[in-house]
């Protein structure tokens, strides 16, 4: 998928991604010549379809964790996985822990690991709800 600025005949560049949490996603693209921006707004069905391909609009910044799509997409049992404890070594604020507790158990371990990796990669000492919001947008974590 490419976006072309018709006025400049210039390919627009990916700028940012947003996941509002309602099953949709948005991606912004900017013309490097004139600065004009457009937003791609995908409805829930389109979002689901993109998700089913296991790709991220705007590209990936982290490698996909094991069974990423399966764990994100299916309604699975709470005790399906035994996790290693790597993600538990990161520091979580109380509010972040509370928000994480609302993630379904089936997928919580993977979500926790993704946020921990994001924090480590960005030199973030403590994971807070604000860090989670930023990571969601940066990584395209729809529904996480």
């Amino acid at each position, binding site marked *: 998928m490419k976006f072309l600025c018709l006025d400049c005949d210039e390919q627009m560049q990916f700028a940012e991604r947003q996941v509002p949490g309602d099953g949709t996603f948005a991606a912004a693209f900017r013309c490097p010549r004139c600065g004009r921006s457009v937003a791609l707004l995908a409805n829930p069905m389109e*979002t*689901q379809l993109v998700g089913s*391909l296991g790709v991220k609009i705007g*590209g*990936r910044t982290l490698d996909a964790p094991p069974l990423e799509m399966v764990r994100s997409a299916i309604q*699975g049992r709470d005790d399906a996985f035994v996790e290693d404890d790597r993600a538990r070594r990161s520091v979580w604020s109380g509010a972040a822990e509370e928000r994480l507790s609302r993630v379904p158990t089936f997928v919580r371990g993977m979500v926790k*690991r993704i946020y921990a990796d994001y924090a480590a990669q960005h030199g973030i000492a403590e994971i807070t709800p604000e860090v989670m919001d930023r990571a969601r947008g940066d990584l395209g974590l729809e529904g996480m």
Partner: protein
Amino acid sequence: MSFRTYHEVAGPDGSGIAEQVGAQRARVQSRLRSVRRIVAVMSGKGGVGKSFVTAHLAAALARSGRAVGVLDADFNGPTAAGLLGAAGPLRIGDEAVEPRSGVNGVRCVSMAHLLEEGRPLAFRGPQAESFIWRGALEAAALREFLGDVAWGELDYLLVDLPPGLQRLNELCDLLPSPPDVLTVTIPTAESRDAVRRALRAAVERDALALGLVENMVGPQFPGDAGRVLSEEFGIPVLARIPWHPTPDTWHRLAERM
């Protein structure tokens, strides 16, 4: 209004979708490098005992010293984990999921490991127009079961396919080269006709047809589907499984593999 088309705009797409898909394929390829032989157990017909054959063949191969894995690709009717005594949680690490060990050390991953008892495979998110994306999600699940499971060194990875042809086609698309196929039929004319289509599809995908297993042989299901298909496709009937097979039945099939 006239403007350039996708291919006329020379720059890569900002998402690198092709690269992401390429990375997915590379992951599958890399993971399966340690697997000597991938065998899809297929039929094209439901209810002929594919999973039963898969599980007993896997156990027999393992009993004779081979390292064997079973990928249960029947996501909507998963039974392999139960048949192999491999139920329970999956251990998940940084890079991969560990398959569960079952009878004779057969390694198994199944959708049954992930679903609540008695619950169907269901996806989160909007259900509208689900026929559009459901197939893509199941294909992605197959890709992840191939590429994200630490199968390790295997002599055989048996892939237990559901009825129909869709999963076989997905498997052929995902693997670096088409799998070998072991085809299960029962003796009846109805099974023969359905299995013929599946075998034809497999051959057209350049899969190597190893042979046929004629299951449920006995007076309950009269017919000669195994013989007819064997002659038609020039492949052997590797086993004729009676209603009450013995361990020796499976041992002989394993040896003929």
